């Protein structure tokens, strides 16, 4: 018999696979729901930041207007407006919102975007005083995790793959059909290979299908550079799905009955998807524990007290040198200059502590980066987050760029304070602006190349092992 005919016969059989339509409909519904949920998550973030940015723009417009009136006024009696005072502006009035830019695939994987800041609100205070800003997320959602396409692919698709393939051969044997097949003069090994091929193709088609649907919903295909990300994403999803299919095939090849296969695969799911990632995370945090926050706070408090004492001494010296100013109100701008100097001292004192936090976090990341190869689920999940621009690395790059920018922003005001230069209309137009170029889609895709290849190799190895084991598969 020609091989295409045999394959077509298998395809015809698939139409009668119990529950196949239900599973396909469920998968499509889950994919659409997850994508809509991802879009809604990003929309919530945008809705949080937009009013803040609008309010800030309105404040700045009003200040610029007052500056313009002040500069055009010929009246010598007009008081210097707030808009001309760099200390007050930088340290109190102005807020600079620095918002992360994300690739179009962002709705498909929350990654750590719900845990790390999506934007920073900067002022001219030192970097250690810049508190993280962000959307207040529903704590239940934070605890349970986001429902997005990555969740569907990493957690739910393996269950669907198991449901479709846990009895791919054992059922044939239990029904007694395999014996009848074996008597037809067809090689059992080829029959099994054909069956696995068709079942595998069906799984691949389903995974590609849901990804295409999800990407169509978010409109990825309208942006040509993102096609490479979309293709990489789909490749990771397909290899991950095939890996689970390989596990199911290998379990079948071991010759257990269908119920045993189901139990083995359910336990494998629990181990690889739930237990191993948790264990890896636990190892990373225990091998490189974060330094004590209590110690950091104590150090910060001591450094602040010392800085305040130094500032008070400097102020005393200043009034001793300028006794005429001592009776009147203290110039606010002098106050801000002292604040800036004090913060520099504090920053210097706590810098080693902060560096230790950063280093430990980096080491934890490095442990997870190589240990993820022990868990296909973690490997796939991190690859999806990388392509969606929601992984730790993407956030770290944003954070570095944001804080470099903060240095410029602070310097803009502090240098004016130190040199006693007031803000002018020109000064306003020279306010720094945040220009961050996020990592290119191609670069992000290259970062998932190795994980994708590992998933693919594991899938192929499992399927090959299954086929080798099936050579000794008895039809009775």
């Amino acid at each position, binding site marked *: *018999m020609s091989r295409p*005919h*045999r394959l*077509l*016969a298998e395809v*015809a*059989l698939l139409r*009668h696979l*119990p529950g196949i339509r239900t599973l396909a409909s469920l998968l499509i519904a889950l994919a659409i729901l997850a994508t809509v949920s991802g879009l809604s998550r990003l929309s919530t973030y945008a809705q949080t930041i937009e009013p803040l940015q609008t309010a800030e723009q309105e404040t700045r417009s009003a200040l610029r207007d007052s500056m313009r009136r002040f500069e055009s006024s010929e009246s010598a009696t007009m008081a210097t407006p707030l808009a001309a005072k760099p200390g007050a502006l930088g340290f109190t009035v102005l807020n600079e919102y620095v918002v992360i830019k994300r690739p179009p695939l962002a709705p498909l994987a929350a990654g750590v975007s719900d845990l790390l800041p999506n934007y920073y609100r900067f002022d001219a205070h030192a970097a250690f005083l810049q508190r993280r800003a962000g959307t207040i997320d529903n704590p239940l959602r934070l605890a349970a995790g986001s429902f997005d396409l990555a969740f569907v692919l990493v957690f739910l698709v393996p269950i669907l793959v198991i449901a479709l393939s846990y009895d791919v051969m054992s059922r044939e044997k239990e*029904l*007694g*059909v395999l*014996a*009848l*097949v*074996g*008597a*037809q*003069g*067809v*090689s059992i090994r080829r*029959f099994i290979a054909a069956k696995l091929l068709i079942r595998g193709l069906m799984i691949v088609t389903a995974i590609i299908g849901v990804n295409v649907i999800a990407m169509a919903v978010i409109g990825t295909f309208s942006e040509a550079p993102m096609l490479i990300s979309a293709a990489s994403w789909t490749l990771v999803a397909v290899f991950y799905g095939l890996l689970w299919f390989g596990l199911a095939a290998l379990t079948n090849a071991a010759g257990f009955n269908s119920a045993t296969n189901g139990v083995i695969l359910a336990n494998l799911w629990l181990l690889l998807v739930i237990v191993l990632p948790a264990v890896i995370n636990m190892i990373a945090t225990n091998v490189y524990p974060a330094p004590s926050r209590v110690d950091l706070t104590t150090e910060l408090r001591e450094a602040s007290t010392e800085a305040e004492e130094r500032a008070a001494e400097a102020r005393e010296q200043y009034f001793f040198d300028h006794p005429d100013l001592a009776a009147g109100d203290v110039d606010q701008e002098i106050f801000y200059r002292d604040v800036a100097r004090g913060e520099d001292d504090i920053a210097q004192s706590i810098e080693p502590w902060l560096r230790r936090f950063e280093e430990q976090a980096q080491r934890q990341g490095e442990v997870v980066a190589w240990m993820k190869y022990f868990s296909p689920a973690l490997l796939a999940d991190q690859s999806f987050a990388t392509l969606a621009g929601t992984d730790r690395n993407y956030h770290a790059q944003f954070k570095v760029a944001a804080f470099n920018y903060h240095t410029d922003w602070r310097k803009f005001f502090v240098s004016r304070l130190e040199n006693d230069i007031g803000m002018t209309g020109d000064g306003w137009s020279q306010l720094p602006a945040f220009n961050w170029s996020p990592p290119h889609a191609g670069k992000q895709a290259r970062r998932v190349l190795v994980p994708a290849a590992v998933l693919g190799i594991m899938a192929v190895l499992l399927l090959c092992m299954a086929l080798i084991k099936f050579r000794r598969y*008895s*039809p*009775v």
Partner: protein
Amino acid sequence: MLEANQLVKHYGSHEALRGVSLKVEPGEIYCLLGANGAGKTTTINLFLNFITATSGNAVVNGIDVAKDPLGSKRRLAYIPEQVMLYGLLSGLENLRYFSTLGGRDLSDDDARELLLQAGLAANAAHKEVRAYSKGMRQKVGVAIALAKRATALLLDEPTSGLDPKASNEFSELLVQLRDGGAAILMTSHDLFRAKESGSRIGIMREGVLLNELVSSDVSHGDLERIYLEHMSG
């Protein structure tokens, strides 16, 4: 033609077959009788190459099944005790599927004709097999054998559990196949059916073929007596 030459099969220390030799010529029905565990099904499985003989060989139409397992099955049909088909497919779809596996693509008309020849009612051909009785599934099994134009048939207790009418219909089908020149090896517990439709009868016990009889030479009573003597002896 079916031929077993000194077939021995060991499962660890258990000897399932101990040097069984038999020959089934074209146009002959050979009935293997024996209690459970006598080695009847093991003999069938060796002819199908589902298991490997410890020693000896099984030959189908002149082909050693261990040396050319696929070639030996080209004109071989097998009907097990329970013809297990795909329950969600109709009898017609099952026939077409298994025929495709066997190397022959059947049209719907051809398949319908074969099912009719096998005795399946025309209105049953399109029903899902899960609604079939055992007898109806056996008929689909016969249709698969007919589609394959099998010259050798292996039947493993095919009439077990069939009601007398269905059992009789099945025996008539076997006789038709025999008259068409097929060599048929059938295992059974049914002495009456073996005597009625078998050309020769072999009695097995504990992996040994104890006796071979020509069915026309013995009466029903003689067969029962000889069988019981062997079983109790």
